């Protein structure tokens, strides 16, 4: 049974104070991305939903919003996949096992797994989009009996950018799910499919529009093309999920940085249904 209880918030306390947490394991995933397995110092568990994020605090450097890439079904620790792009993430990459960081969260709204129970699932992940959606993939794998068919499609630019190689190998060999992978550009060793992730959708069997949920996480340009393919298969807009990337700072719907039009992505998102994005013109720019 999944652990989806949200820890009680002390509402009279400052929303900006991080909780100490320890890095228990790191793994360099690619040249740019490093995985951090983290344990909160107090006995509290994170208690997140797949698709939520945390603010990682490094004192003197600041905070960076990072999506949680592990499932609440593995509750003792949680994992963050961090691309080295800025001050905080650059400093974070220099940290290792035993180092202490600050964590605020879980924040935002994740995937509604209860609504997905009993349905067929298609997950389309592009590039770093695999990180946020890996929390959901692990959840489905751990709770496999509660879902119907499970198709997992993953594309990235080139083989050197493939994230979570151990997971990818396991998914490929897991007969309980249908895994398809592609790269935009092959190198000499690559023996798999070549082409953008959209091409994988053509390999999917017929989908039952009333029974299927599609989750698309990747760069906005990919999202548009994949949504088109999925809508063409008559999947309703309420059954299509995505996750938006923004620069959340406060994480509680005040500071304004993450807004897409009138929506505070940190509060109402980062996970949205496609139907909710209608009229949100900035969402997919």
């Amino acid at each position, binding site marked *: 049974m999944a652990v989806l209880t949200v820890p009680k*918030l002390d*509402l*009279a*306390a*400052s*929303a*900006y*104070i*991080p909780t*100490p947490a320890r890095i228990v394991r790191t793994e360099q995933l690619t040249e740019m991305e490093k995985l951090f397995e983290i344990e909160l*110092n107090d006995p509290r568990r994170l208690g997140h939903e797949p698709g939520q994020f945390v603010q990682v605090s490094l*004192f*003197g*450097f*600041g*905070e*960076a919003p990072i999506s949680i890439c592990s499932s609440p079904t593995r509750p003792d620790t949680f994992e963050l996949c961090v*691309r080295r*792009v*800025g001050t905080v*993430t650059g400093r974070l990459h220099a940290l290792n096992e*035993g*180092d*202490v960081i*600050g964590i605020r969260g879980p924040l935002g709204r994740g995937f509604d797994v209860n609504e997905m129970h009993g349905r067929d699932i298609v997950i389309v992940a592009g590039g770093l989009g695999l990180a946020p959606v890996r929390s959901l993939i692990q959840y489905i794998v751990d709770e496999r009996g509660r879902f119907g068919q499970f198709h997992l499609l993953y594309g990235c630019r080139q083989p050197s950018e493939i994230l979570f190689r151990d997971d990818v190998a396991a998914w490929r060999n897991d007969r309980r799910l249908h895994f398809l992978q592609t790269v935009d550009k092959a190198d000499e060793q690559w023996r798999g499919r070549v082409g953008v992730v959209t091409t994988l959708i053509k390999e999917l069997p017929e989908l039952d529009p009333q029974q299927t949920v599609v989750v698309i996480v990747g760069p906005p340009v990919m999202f548009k093309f994949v949504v088109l393919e999925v809508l063409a298969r008559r999947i309703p807009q309420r059954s299509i999920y995505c996750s938006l*990337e*923004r*620069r959340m*700072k*406060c994480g*509680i*719907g*005040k*500071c*304004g*940085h993450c*807004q*897409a*039009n*009138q929506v505070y992505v940190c*509060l109402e998102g980062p996970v949205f249904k496609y139907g909710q994005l209608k009229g949100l*013109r*900035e969402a997919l*720019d």
Partner: protein
Amino acid sequence: MLDLMVTPADFVALVNELGRKRRIIGPVARGDRYFYEEVGDAARLELGFSYAVYGPKSFLFPAVETLFRFEADNGSFTAEPVYDDRPAAFVGVHPCDLHAIRLLDRVFAQDRRDEHYLRRRGATMIIGIDCARPCNEGVFCADMKCHQADEGFDVMLLPLSDGDGNRRWGLKFGSAAGREWLTYSRRCTAPTAADERAAETFLRAKAAAFPRALTTRVERLPELLERSYDSLLWEATARRCYSCGSCNLTCPTCYCFDMSDSLDLSLTSGVRQRLWDGCQLPGFALVAGNHNFRPRAAQRLRHRIFRKAKWIRERTGVAGCVGCGRCDRACTAKISAVEIYNQLAELD
């Protein structure tokens, strides 16, 4: 309609009595402009001021505010929240700014509460001053229905005079705290029938004194904007915009902020602070990896106007633009919010 009357000199004495228990914040003259500052003597307050450049947020939501102090030690850290909940009396807030405070109150209490704002606000008594006439050219507070305030203050002062032409403050209570402060004061007197007539005359004169600058009704702005998202007006107006953020800086309802750490010399302790930020600044919507979600001045201008006249109200139920005209006056390129509203109505 009046609760009590007081002379200007007695009011200053009353505020100074209050000042034994509370910090006094109010309008102070700097050159020919006014700013909200803490004073040791209420006689320094310029209660006949036009308007405070930065509005009430400069006190209630300071430009730089420490959220917590941290100390890293032996591989862990401690973080202690910093709250400023010293009792304060905020004297001299005009109706438009009372509306702005009402918005801040909602924003910081909505969803996850922001204790840093709310504790300061909770410790603050607000003494409003009604305005007899527009504080400046170009205000459109009456158009935005924010030139009067029936709530949001503990005490409201009405600038009246007695039969001999001597100035008197007419007092209205807005809260139990306001009533408690003044009810038993020997400095105040009960209003006479003549005082009540003076208050009525004041309000009638006030209603006639405020200009109308908006060519449509404020209630129509959301739907006008809804249909103008792709208007060329944004691009055309933003040609003049320097993206300097002066509008954000002076707007009493702009509350967006950035967060930043600052270390002590030891490099093991320091503070995390929040600082005013502005959606018109080019880097506001920048994410790690250098993607900017609003790279163009036209997109940023549109975002600001949509927030002020549509989205903030939809989110909080209260006005996002109070019509104070500060942004129009601060704009180095003479971009005017009310002119944009009127152009939207005209293009419609």
